[in-house]
């Protein structure tokens, strides 16, 4: 009998800070005032802000309790497909907290920021090397912002060539943000379907690629967790009509150290440091979405750009073809420190091994759950595998029911109902950092839930039962949203 991580236990209620507040309560004692009070002109003062008055212990308990309601990768397996919730090594935090980095001020000027500039320069060089590209910008704030930055460069490239184009090709296995990024640049999305085995067929692209099409946006590996094996041929077709290939590198964590996107026909690629390079993700962010380009798009990179002259680093802004600035200052610097720490501590071999383990773990889950859950695209996967609820239909159990029930077993649910090309998708991404023992526990939990679907479907309909908040009424929440506390 495998012991599952999920169990019931005492959970503390916790009111809002304002409800705990008592007049005059304070976290410190200030020394007695020894100068005369000087009253400000009433024109300069307004009503005091409504801040809660609390003791230190009140505050510590408040946030400790809230953190105990949460589920993070530090508390359990978080197999959220496509989102890559990989573990964030604590050394990243230690390096980012070093005083020189943590206290760096963006207005201190190049002269007093040499360490920070050197880190940015080196990180750009490493990312360029890992991806096989010529140059990198670290400015974008997250993945979709990176996409937008990349598409602005493609737009600027066509404008520079004297003839703007109107369309962009987007496959059904791309990330949902791709069409939004293209639309913001004024391009109309032309959606295409992937082939029966889940990857793109060159003929599909050849049939619609024309000289009014700015290019294609390909997520590789795609959102089915499959490698787009025809990428080179597709890139040749797009290039032959004067278009460019945008690579969505959100899934780079499957091929880092193995495949260089810059060498397989992709012209511009964004990375998610908060996925591939183990920086915090979700509410713990912020994100960071560096963009790598080949020589064709290099002149269009955002400014300011870090350059190295002899042993000195500085920002330059004098670049005539640049798309301009896309973020205040230089992007999310603290996140860059964490990603740099990760790259240096892993080393080249370590990064490649991480990709291999991520792929191995996903395939292990896929094979172990074969027969338990349906596999709509049954072929070796990359870093994530996509199941659906086809086998559970006869018991009227859905992907949502199984995902909710996983919470009771102590696992964060996987991504559900995405990608859209799979009905009832149940998309698992274990990442490289889970041990075989933890993955086996997860597999056992899913198998137990599949058994419950047969034996006791009503129990699944009511799940989760052990969490602080049980099954939510999502329909009521959407129809009658309560937007005030």
């Amino acid at each position, binding site marked *: 009998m495998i012991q599952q991580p999920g169990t019931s236990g005492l959970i503390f209620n916790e009111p809002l800070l304002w409800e705990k507040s008592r007049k005059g309560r304070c976290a410190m004692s200030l020394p007695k005032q020894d100068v005369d009070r000087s009253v400000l002109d009433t024109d300069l003062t307004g009503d005091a802000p409504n801040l809660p008055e609390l003791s230190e212990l009140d505050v510590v308990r408040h946030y400790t309790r809230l953190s105990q309601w949460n589920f993070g990768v530090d508390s359990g397996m978080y197999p959220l497909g496509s989102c890559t919730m990989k573990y964030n090594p604590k050394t990243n935090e230690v390096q980012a907290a070093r005083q020189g980095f943590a206290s760096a001020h963006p207005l201190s000027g190049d002269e007093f920021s040499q360490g920070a500039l050197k880190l940015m320069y080196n990180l750009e060089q490493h990312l360029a090397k890992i991806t096989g590209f010529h140059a990198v910008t670290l400015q974008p704030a997250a993945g979709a912002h990176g996409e937008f930055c990349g598409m602005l460069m493609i737009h600027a490239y066509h404008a520079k060539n004297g003839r703007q184009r109107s369309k962009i090709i987007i496959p059904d296995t791309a990330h949902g943000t791709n069409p939004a990024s293209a639309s913001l640049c004024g391009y109309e999305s032309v959606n295409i379907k992937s082939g029966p085995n889940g990857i793109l067929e060159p003929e599909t692209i050849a049939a619609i690629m024309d000289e009014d099409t700015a290019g294609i946006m390909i997520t590789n590996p795609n959102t089915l967790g499959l490698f787009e094996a025809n990428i080179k041929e597709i890139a040749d077709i797009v290039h032959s009509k004067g278009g460019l290939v945008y690579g969505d590198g959100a899934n780079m964590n499957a091929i880092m150290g193995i495949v260089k996107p810059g060498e397989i026909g992709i012209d511009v690629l964004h990375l998610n440091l908060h996925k591939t390079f183990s920086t915090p993700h979700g509410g713990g962010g912020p994100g960071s979405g560096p963009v790598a380009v080949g020589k064709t798009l290099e002149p269009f990179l955002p400014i300011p750009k870090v350059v190295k002259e002899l042993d000195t680093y500085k920002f330059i802004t004098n670049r005539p073809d640049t798309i301009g600035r896309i973020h205040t200052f230089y992007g999310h610097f603290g996140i860059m420190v964490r990603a740099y720490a990760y790259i240096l501590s892993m080393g080249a071999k370590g990064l490649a091994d991480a990709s291999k383990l991520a792929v191995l773990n996903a395939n292990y889950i896929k094979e172990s759950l074969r027969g338990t859950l349906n596999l709509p695209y049954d072929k070796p996967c990359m870093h994530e595998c996509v199941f659906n609820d086809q086998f559970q*239909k006869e018991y009227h159990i859905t992907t949502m029911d199984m995902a909710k029930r996983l919470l009771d077993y102590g696992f964060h649910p996987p991504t559900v*109902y995405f990608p*859209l090309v799979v009905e009832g998708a149940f998309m698992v991404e274990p990442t490289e950092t889970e041990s075989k023992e933890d993955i086996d526990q997860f597999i056992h939990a899913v198998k137990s839930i599949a058994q419950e679907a047969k034996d006791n479907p009503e129990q699944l309909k009511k799940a989760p039962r052990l969490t602080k908040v049980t099954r939510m009424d*999502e*329909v009521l929440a*959407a*129809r009658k949203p309560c937007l005030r506390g």
Partner: protein
Amino acid sequence: MKELKDLNFPDDVKYTKDHEWAKKTGELVTIGINDYAQDQLGEIVFVELPEVGDIFSEGDEFGSVESVKAVSEIYIPISGEIVEINQGLEDAPELVNQSCYTDGWLVSIKPSNASEFESLMDKAAYLDMLKG
């Protein structure tokens, strides 16, 4: 989701490949989504409709239906001008789930080309399409 045999497809309306229905009443045509579409979408939480007076050509997107699962665009099956929209859906989008052919109708349109309505599918043709 229901089996095909448990879904309701009335004989007195026409059907489209996008799982809508259209019914002619005098000069006007009423449009909604059919039982298959509402069943696939699940619990509908919001319906976005055009404004009265908007003019569309066949195949144009004229609004969207949002369920807990997804937002789906809806396409106009025939060209014409919107003469009435179902105001009741603003407060009660669940009408589309409860009675998609009656209280859950979406818009009423004044067709600009009568032949477009005639070329929509009847129940038998639509069911053939669904069964593939």
